[in-house]
């Protein structure tokens, strides 16, 4: 069995950033394992603009953004293995990899970083009633067909879900000559950025229907029609509000889920993010196994993925250098109005500032974010606008950490 100090599963933005950081901190024996034929992950198909504003103070396309990290990986001579899929791992950090050249091979690692990204919720997952016809695909799949291979998925298209990927695809498909009839969103608000509603829908006069979803799909072989029906505040269809729309394709942009099936092998506890439960160094509850990027929690901006990758790379480097002395855990709890917080634990012995990343449950205005512990106020931060589609970050300085009891909570309070 081969050995390696740090094995990184997934060579997307998170995995590359983690590798680069660990290398810079003196870890030389690293291996990135990537199942695709190139590094970069999902950004390879995100050919639109808008990446890198925080990281490089420039607006880049996805491929341009990722190429800067591939370049660093090459320059730092960090080894990577392409077309290779991690198929299982153990708590003792034995990783099984499968690829064409070598078949099945095993590595014993001293530390592991999981950076496997996320997958899209599919038609089956949201159980759309009606016929089982072709012509129903996810936005990411449509994006890959069009941007990498050059196939248009249909001519008359309805998009379900107003997340950013759906909005970006509405514009992209329109530019390539398809008719995007409308975008329909179940919630009373859009999950995408305002800027994408402006530049992807309004620019092309594509209507966005809120509180409306697909109640039925109709089609013998290929999709012929969808029925869009309004929903009430309990998400129940309202009779008599049907809109019948002729279309050949229904694109689903109904959510991303961290891809964590490998965690099942190691009984790794998860959190409300649907990713692994982690501490401030992005270490999971399994010793020496770290997680970052979309497999930890779904990000909307890649710059923050890169940042989180570095954090995990730093954590793994400290672990490998025996600099992580573990003490008691302080639990971090999301309370009123907060959907989730990363990390879910802070180590009592931690010596660094901690950044909380969280999402709110629903859009709110004029709120104070209250961070408290044992009934004692630790921080109070005014937030004029908070929306679920935007991840929020707040930093807790290390000098506040001694004030924390066994748990610390985040909640929203009206100002």
């Amino acid at each position, binding site marked *: 069995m081969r050995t390696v100090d740090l094995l990184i599963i997934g060579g997307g933005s998170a995995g590359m950033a983690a590798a680069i950081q660990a290398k810079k901190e003196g870890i030389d024996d690293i291996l990135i394992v990537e199942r695709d034929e190139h590094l970069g992950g999902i950004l390879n198909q995100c050919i639109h*603009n808008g990446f890198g504003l925080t990281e490089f103070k420039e607006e880049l396309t996805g491929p341009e953004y990722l*190429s800067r990290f591939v370049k660093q990986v090459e320059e730092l001579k960090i080894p990577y293995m392409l077309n290779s899929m991690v198929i299982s791992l153990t708590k003792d950090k034995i990783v099984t990899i499968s690829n064409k050249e070598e078949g099945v091979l095993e590595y014993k690692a001293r530390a592991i970083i999981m950076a496997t990204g996320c997958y899209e919720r599919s038609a089956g997952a949201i159980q759309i009633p009606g016929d089982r016809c072709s012509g129903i695909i996810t936005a990411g799949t449509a994006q890959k067909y069009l*941007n990498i291979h050059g196939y248009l998925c249909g001519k008359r298209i309805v998009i379900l879900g107003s997340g950013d990927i759906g909005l970006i695809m509405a514009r992209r498909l329109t530019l390539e000559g398809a008719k995007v009839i409308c975008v329909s969103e179940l919630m009373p608000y859009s999950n995408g950025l305002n*800027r994408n509603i*402006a530049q992807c829908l309004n*620019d092309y006069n594509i209507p966005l229907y809120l509180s409306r979803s697909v109640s039925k799909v109709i089609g013998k072989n290929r999709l012929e029609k969808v029925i869009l029906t309004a929903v009430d505040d309990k998400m129940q269809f309202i009779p008599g509000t049907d809109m019948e729309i002729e279309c050949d394709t229904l694109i689903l942009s109904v959510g991303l889920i961290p891809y964590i099936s490998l965690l099942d092998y190691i009984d790794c506890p998860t959190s409300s993010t649907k990713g692994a439960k982690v501490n401030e160094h992005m270490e999971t509850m399994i010793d020496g196994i770290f997680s970052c990027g979309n497999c930890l929690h779904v990000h909307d901006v890649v710059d923050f993925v890169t940042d989180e990758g570095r954090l995990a790379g730093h954590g793994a480097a400290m672990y490998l250098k025996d600099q992580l002395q573990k003490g008691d855990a302080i639990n971090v709890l999301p309370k009123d109005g907060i959907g989730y917080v990363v990390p879910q634990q802070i180590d009592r012995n931690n010596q660094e500032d901690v950044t909380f990343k969280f999402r709110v449950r629903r859009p709110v205005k004029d709120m104070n974010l209250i961070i408290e512990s044992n009934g004692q106020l630790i921080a109070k931060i005014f937030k004029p606008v908070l929306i679920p589609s935007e991840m929020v970050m707040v930093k807790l300085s290390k000098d506040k950490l001694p004030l924390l009891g066994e748990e610390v909570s985040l909640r929203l309070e009206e100002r």
Partner: protein
Amino acid sequence: MKEFTCIICPRGCRLTVDDNMNVTGNTCPRGKQYAISELTNPVRTITSSVRVNNRDDLLVSVKTSGSIPKGKIFEVMDEINKLSVSAPTRIGDIVKKDILGLGVDILITKNID
């Protein structure tokens, strides 16, 4: 009075422009510039992809080197769709200079070996 969303950065500020071209709602100066351009000469950049001749089933991504008038988007798309390149490609390579005489080039945004 006109209202719209600034598209310059992900913050997406709600901008209001009054009849004297006074802009409010912007968090930074770029928002003001955007609002004025949106009312006088709205422009956009385009990203798309073009065929790679010597590779099966593969496209390479491209972008306009600068912004083009909003009204020209579909004409530029028609031109982009006529283009093709041969691998290897390098980020920043020019596929077409001065497209439709608009003063912007079509540039490669992906390295393909």
